[in-house]
């Protein structure tokens, strides 16, 4: 395939205050291809594409469109050149209808009556052509994530763009939705469009992309035709020599052995018909019942916003459930506060690290003891033993590879990935019979993800249970003994490891119960 490239990025460099995000990266796109941009977190994929879309300025380098050098100062320029980008977080006006969101910012035929008939006809035609079925007259906030993504893609198509950039588009989609997205992408390239597909998931790249560019630490590693690519080659390219692939959990070929857990052992955690009604009267959790055995890794799968956070907060005692009972090691803890639960051996990695778990104005050491600051060895209940705290903090910084100048450094200076490492170091620094981990690997590079997985597996050996709530289905399939699927606050099914099936879980994630 020796076509003339439609777009070329040459030697792009970008530095954020002190970190070098991109160090001379080049990238080319030909018409009619899906080009995968693969790399771990922090590899620079999104930064590169944000530069192309005009959200960031490049420090140096050139962008050429059809051989002509262009300057992009903002998304408006990018759209003018036929380039559009769908981010992980959709920029939509939630109380507008689908069609209003799609035409927003473009000229319309009847600008005084706001009758959108002719526009709607065009959008419907696009929907049919690309297999993106959306009801145009419903408001955005009633739609699930997967459909909102279609709206975002339609927005780009409506603007007649030639190049579409998708940033981790499969996050939060069920496997069925992923398949249908890939089908739509195929149709688009058949019409001559070019697509950049940013992801960190190897298998997706291999199933949909024509060419694959791998980035690592802000540099090009390689660009391959799909025929040349294999998982082996891509893994090596993504991680370089830092990770020992043989012992890695992340790249494990045959996933964990099934559980050798005694099923008659006393449950560590048991939820009995737990319900939660929020202040505004909406049921966030409905009749949630499950039990966790010692050493079990119990997964909660579901599209974001279906009650995962509420479930985590009920179990950890941050909000008391409205109904039902929670027992921890045989003790009723339904109304016990987190303060007591931390002493009883619960530990929590919250999803929203910046809001729920981190003190930006506190030092790294202060952050590492949050929640354990009343317990030995850090404190005798009255005074904090800073000498011990600093010793432990130093060893945690080393063990968890937190990049900081020392325990004294202000937390606010840490990068997102390092903040996540602090959360993880804190959670694993104390023995706990139950860990509640909500998206624990978000924002981590592959090496750190692998480290977290190994730590969680270590817990299994010590017969400590882990409640792993994650939006990454692959992560759950890799790690868990059992997976429960949550949909609108309800557990729709619990699958044993032997029954794991992506598509079965995907059906449950979209609210379709098994007909049995």
């Amino acid at each position, binding site marked *: 395939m020796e076509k003339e490239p439609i777009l070329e990025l040459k030697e792009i460099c970008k530095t954020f205050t002190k970190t070098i995000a991109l160090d001379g990266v080049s990238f080319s796109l030909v018409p009619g291809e899906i080009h995968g941009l693969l790399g771990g977190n922090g590899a620079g994929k999104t930064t590169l594409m944000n530069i192309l879309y005009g959200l960031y300025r490049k420090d140096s380098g050139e962008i050429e469109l059809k051989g002509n050098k262009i300057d992009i100062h903002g998304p408006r320029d990018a759209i003018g050149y036929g380039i559009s980008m769908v981010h992980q977080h959709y920029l939509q006006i939630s109380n507008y209808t689908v069609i209003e969101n799609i035409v927003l910012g473009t000229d319309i035929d009847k600008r005084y009556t706001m009758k959108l008939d002719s526009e709607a006809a065009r959008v419907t035609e696009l929907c049919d052509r690309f297999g993106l079925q959306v009801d145009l007259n419903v408001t955005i906030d009633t739609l699930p994530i997967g459909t909102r993504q279609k709206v975002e893609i339609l927005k780009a198509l409506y603007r007649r763009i030639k190049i579409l950039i998708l940033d981790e588009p499969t996050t939060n989609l069920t496997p069925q939705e992923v398949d249908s997205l890939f089908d739509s992408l195929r149709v688009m390239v058949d019409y001559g469009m070019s697509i950049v597909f940013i992801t960190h998931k190897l298998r997706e790249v291999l199933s949909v992309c024509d060419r694959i560019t791998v980035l690592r630490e802000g540099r090009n590693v390689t660009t391959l035709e799909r025929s040349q690519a294999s998982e082996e080659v891509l893994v090596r390219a993504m991680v370089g020599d830092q990770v020992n692939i043989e012992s890695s959990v992340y790249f494990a070929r045959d996933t964990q052995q099934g559980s050798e857990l005694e099923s008659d052992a006393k449950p560590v955690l048991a939820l009995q018909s737990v319900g939660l009604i929020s202040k505004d009267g909406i049921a966030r959790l409905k009749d949630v019942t499950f039990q966790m055995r010692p050493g079990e890794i119990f997964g909660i799968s579901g599209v974001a916003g279906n009650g995962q956070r509420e479930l985590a907060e009920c179990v950890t005692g*941050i909000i008391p459930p409205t109904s039902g009972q929670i027992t921890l090691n045989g003790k009723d803890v339904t109304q016990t506060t987190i303060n007591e639960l931390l002493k009883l051996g619960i530990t929590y990695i919250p999803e929203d690290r910046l809001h729920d778990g981190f*003190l930006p104005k*506190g030092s790294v050491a202060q952050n590492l003891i949050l929640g354990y600051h*009343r317990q030995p060895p850090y404190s005798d209940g009255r*005074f*904090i033993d800073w000498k011990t705290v600093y010793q432990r903090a130093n060893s945690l910084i080393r063990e968890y590879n937190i990049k900081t100048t020392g325990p004294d450094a202000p937390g606010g200076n840490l990068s997102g990935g390092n903040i996540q490492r602090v959360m993880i170091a804190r959670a694993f620094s104390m023995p706990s019979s139950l860990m509640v981990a909500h998206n624990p690997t978000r924002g981590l590079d592959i090496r750190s993800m692998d480290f977290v997985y190994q730590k969680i597996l270590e817990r299994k050996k010590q017969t400590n249970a882990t409640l792993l709530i994650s939006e990454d289905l692959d992560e759950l399939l890799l790690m868990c003994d059992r997976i429960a699927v949550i949909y609108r606050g309800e557990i729709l099914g619990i699958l044993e490891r032997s029954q794991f099936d992506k598509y079965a879980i995907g059906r449950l994630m979209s609210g379709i119960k098994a007909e049995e």
Partner: protein
Amino acid sequence: MTIARKITPYMIAIVASFAAAGIFIAAMGFDVGRAYSTILGTSFRTPNGFIQTLLKFIPLTLLALAFTVPLTAGKFNIGGEGQMIMGAIAASAAGIMFAHLPFYLLLPLVILAGVIAGALWGLVPAWLLYRFGLHEILTTVLLNFVSFAVIDLVATGPWRDPAAGHPTTIPIGEGGFLPMLVSNPPLHSGLILAVVVAAGIYVYTTRTTSGYELVASGANPRAAQVYGINVKRMFVFSLVLAGALAGLAGVIEVAGVQHRLIEGMQSNFLVLGLIIGLIAKGDNLAVPFVALFIAVLEVGASAMQRTMMIPVQMVFIVEALVLLFVLLSDVVRRR
């Protein structure tokens, strides 16, 4: 961060603000060098000047701490003035009512009464915050005005000193006077109280578990709550503690300096306390040092007005400029 690096921006800010204010002084036709040597030198030239400075230092430190301690927990106490007045009123009331008691009973009683009254005056906004979520800036400021009315009532009421030309009460019992450290010029033992309290606050916020919770509540209330800290209780506690600190300042003014309640005795300590707290960037350890510096300027300012007829407001401008330049240095460093 080394101490030198911490202090450098302060030094630059001070030099810059003196330079800027010097232009004004020169433009007004005064001798800049003499003005500044008066401002900076008065405190150190005579024993009297030095003791005047220490006497200013006491209430300034306490009122600045009454601002920075809640600030550590992320709350803004602008009510130090009212809390100080209430402390002074309660201390005078105790000192007048039990005037006949011996000093070992009366002095603790006077101190305790004032500290508790200040704490209660801090509890009001704290409770309004806890119960109804009313913003503490508003409530603390408004309570200052209530305290003005109360001091007016007390100073013109039955305890009024008819001989005085200004609303003033009769003196408190002699047993309620703070013992003197130096009798001439007079320096009372409130200085020791203030230094001990400032050290205690520093130890509390940096070494104790409860102090850690206070800092965590200020750094990120949501995260503190998620990790088992009763944040609302820390807010209440910080405001009550601030009230007690300001109340103690009131006690010391009554028992150490005036020996009676005088309307207007709160002076401009609230505003200076805020300035000190902000120049110190809320750091409880830095507060006493900044307070000493501001006390030197204040004493020098009075002397400058007396000897050179330069208005004291000039020094107020210098203080404000120091604050501005310190804040500016933060912005510059972030770039």
